[in-house]
């Protein structure tokens, strides 16, 4: 099984999965919260928040990586603080790659979840309130179950983005085998190395396969959820 990929290549695959999983898992609760706030609340600074969330989508990834370096680098205000107080380091570590992936994937997650929240009829939430449910209960028992398809779609998008993130990652945490060298960065290195073409091709095929698998799984789950909500007896 392992002979068609070198140990270094497996390392890149494992690292990519780990980075994408952590990036997705950590950004998910924040993403749902921000999406809910943008969809349902009117507060000062809402437009600013909307723009900030979407900036990574529009800015050159290099700029996002550079800003992360300034903020979360060991010399940066946030990075320095986390390093001193909690011993959490982002610079040139896989955690940094996960952070870069999470930031780049965040707008995809928020957009998908926000759209599904906006599709939930607030009248259902009102109905739950008249039946005695508090805001938290309404969210957990009415809103959340109804936006599961949107959350799944957003999660898959975020995960795929995390697996494929390149520009911000290489700018922020460089290309270090075993720490920050995810599949895209390994492909990039292979392409720059004489005779690395076959290695690049193998990793590219694997990349496509992982993305297709993730999409298929999410489609299947979404269809099951949609069928349940649509009223067919489960």
């Amino acid at each position, binding site marked *: 099984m392992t002979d068609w990929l070198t140990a270094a290549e497996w390392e890149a695959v494992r690292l990519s999965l780990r980075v994408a999983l952590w990036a997705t898992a950590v950004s998910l609760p924040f993403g749902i919260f921000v999406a809910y706030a943008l969809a349902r609340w009117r507060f000062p600074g809402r437009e600013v928040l909307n723009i900030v969330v979407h900036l990574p989508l529009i800015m050159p990834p290099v700029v996002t990586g550079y800003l992360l370096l300034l903020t979360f680098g060991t010399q940066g205000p946030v990075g320095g603080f986390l390093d001193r107080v909690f011993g959490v380091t982002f610079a040139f570590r896989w955690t940094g790659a996960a952070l870069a992936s999470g930031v780049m994937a965040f707008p995809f997650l928020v957009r998908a979840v926000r759209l599904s929240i906006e599709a939930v009829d607030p009248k259902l939430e009102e*109905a739950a*309130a008249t039946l005695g*449910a508090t805001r938290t209960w309404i969210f957990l028992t*009415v809103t959340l179950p109804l936006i599961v398809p949107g959350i799944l779609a957003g999660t898959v998008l975020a995960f795929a983005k995390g697996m494929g993130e390149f520009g911000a990652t290489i700018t922020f945490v460089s290309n270090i085998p075993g720490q920050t060298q995810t599949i895209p960065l390994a492909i990039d290195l292979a392409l720059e190395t004489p005779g690395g073409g076959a290695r690049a091709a193998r990793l590219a095929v694997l990349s496509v396969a992982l993305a297709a698998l993730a999409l298929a799984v999410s489609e299947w789950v979404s269809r099951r959820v949609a069928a349940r*909500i*649509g*009223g*067919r007896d489960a």
Partner: protein
Amino acid sequence: MLEVALKQDLPGFTLDVAFEAPAGLTVLFGRSGAGKTSIVNAVAGLSRPQAGRIVADGRVLLDTGAGIWLPPHRRRVGYIFQEGRLFPHMTVRRNLTYGARFAPAHTPREDMARVVEMLGIGALLDRRPGALSGGEKQRVAIGRALLAAPQLILADEPLAALDEARKAEILPYFERLRDEVSVPILYVSHAATEVGRLATSVVALKDGRVLRQGPAAEVLGDPAVLPAGAREAGAILVAHVARQHADGLTELEAGGVPLFLPRLDLAEGAPVRLRIAAHDVILSRHKPDGLSALNILPGIVAELRPGAGPGVMVALDTAAGRVLARITERSATAMGLAPGVALHAIVKSVSVAPGDVGGGPA
């Protein structure tokens, strides 16, 4: 008992009402835009009125003067919405039980089995709302509101989205609700037939103000109360079944006056509410003779109210109760109608529509 006083600026008009809803079913009756839904939403806590006070059985839900506004989840109202608003991702059973877990532990609650039986939804429990018909959804919505152990039930035009056949299917459930549930019910409607059949008391609204309030027969017998237009006007008579005749007619008695209707499948002595549409009544100064109509009620003109067109609404006090008749102004003048004049109201028995005959006490 529910006491409501509200003042609220709304787009296009100002809501300024004060009324009381005693036990039983109180209908907020008025055209669309009269402020009915705004009132119900204020009672449910789904809106915040600028000024007002709402007290349900001594519990203050809203008092802007004292800075009290209970959020909807603490008001304990069972709200039956026009569109049902069932939770699409839950089975009927989970929809029904949703509210129960939030009700305080010691409150008396409806028995699930009894409610399911009363509404005839036993076969639907494991289905989801998407697989239900409009009428079934509305029955589940009634059950869901009821099982939340509410201290007050609100219904906002719960039949408006249904076709005539479904309306006829749901109306009896609201009658049972009115007769079997002890909490007050506030029911919004602009349909005169529903009001006639369901209301124990009526609050007639016009342009955000209370036109008249009181017992149903009294309010609907007032020719000034025509929220649904003169065409829809009609009075309510309270009768009971006197005897069944062999020729297929049922004899009712209202205030000592006999009334004949096509066969009603009710036992002798059973109470019946009749609604007599104003356009189904003919007036005569003399006791008519040789007429095919069976139902003739002698009475005294109480009030004449000219309408916008050539019509005039005549309110007639009879031994059976207040009857409204809509005739032309020309006839009224020719007959010399004025308050105090003795008349006979002629109602063709077949013109009492079956849909307007409801069981139950007034």
